[in-house]
């Protein structure tokens, strides 16, 4: 089954992706993120045609706890965040929980 990539974020963030041909996007202006981001992300999560969700890492902090958790643990569609360091998007916490060691500690590398 062929799927598409979706981008959720501010208009500035999504424009570039639209330039590369991404058709599914949710524009949420910065000043309305507090109210509308949750809804936009939930809508994208429920869309069966979406295989990958692209978001700006800082936007995750604006989500409600519930939506954040569901988008971080979602496997289909998968969340890819941009702008954060390694292990962004909840992956680092999950590794700490499952393995017991913070494998993504950059100081050690």
């Amino acid at each position, binding site marked *: 089954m*062929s799927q598409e*990539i979706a981008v959720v974020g501010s208009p500035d963030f999504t424009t570039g992706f*639209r*330039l590369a041909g*991404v058709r599914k996007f949710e524009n949420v202006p910065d000043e309305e993120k507090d109210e509308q981001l949750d809804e936009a992300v939930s809508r994208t999560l429920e869309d069966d045609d979406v295989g990958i969700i692209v978001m700006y890492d800082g936007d995750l902090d604006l989500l409600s706890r519930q939506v954040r958790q569901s988008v971080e643990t979602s496997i289909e569609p998968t969340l890819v965040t941009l702008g954060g360091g390694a*292990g962004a998007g909840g992956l680092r916490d*999950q590794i700490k929980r499952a*393995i017991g060691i913070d494998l993504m500690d950059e100081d050690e590398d």
Partner: protein
Amino acid sequence: MAEDVKPTRKNLMAIEDRIELSERGHDTLEQKRDGLIMEFMDILDQAQDVRSQLNQDYETAQSKINMARAMEGDVAVRGAAAALKEHPEITTQSKNIMGVVVPQIESSRVKKSLDQRGYGLLGSSARIDEAADAYEELLESIILAAEVETAMKKMLEEIETTKRRVNALEFKLLPDLYENKEYIEQKLEEQEREEIFRLKKIKAKKEEEEKAAREEEGPETTPPETVPADD
């Protein structure tokens, strides 16, 4: 817990069987967990490379689009973005790593040539083309990152459940079973000791009775022996 079982030999045998099975399961699960962690380490190295590439691509793409915006104006960039006709698509296949199904994502139509983009050659500038190029590259990195990070998430989930099972067996089920086994064994020993004691008691009582009976009979039977011989 230990008091819930009936101290019978049948239960003891059943518990011994369960202990054997649980220990075998525990060993197997432990091996699975270690194997999964090793596989995970391989993917983790890969993921870190992909991540750094992704961040690099994102920075490049951002600077390119900012440049395009500054030179051509926001409206031109948005106009070009709205004109795109070809859309990238991804297809997902699955691969099996130690029982964990991880996706393999294949993409099509991410990279497009100038004439495929649809915003026309005359209406746009080279800067918009460059930005589009950079974002196409970024999309490819994103697709790769999505594949690797989904695999990591799935492996982590599996590692977590396996770890939980190993721990449940090691720290809950097996200690309980051993406790039950010991309880039954001690109870059975206790019963055996009681049985021996009872038998000894009965034997002693019987002997006493016999002795008493003999003594009772004694005076009646002995007189003939003590009959004075008639001189």
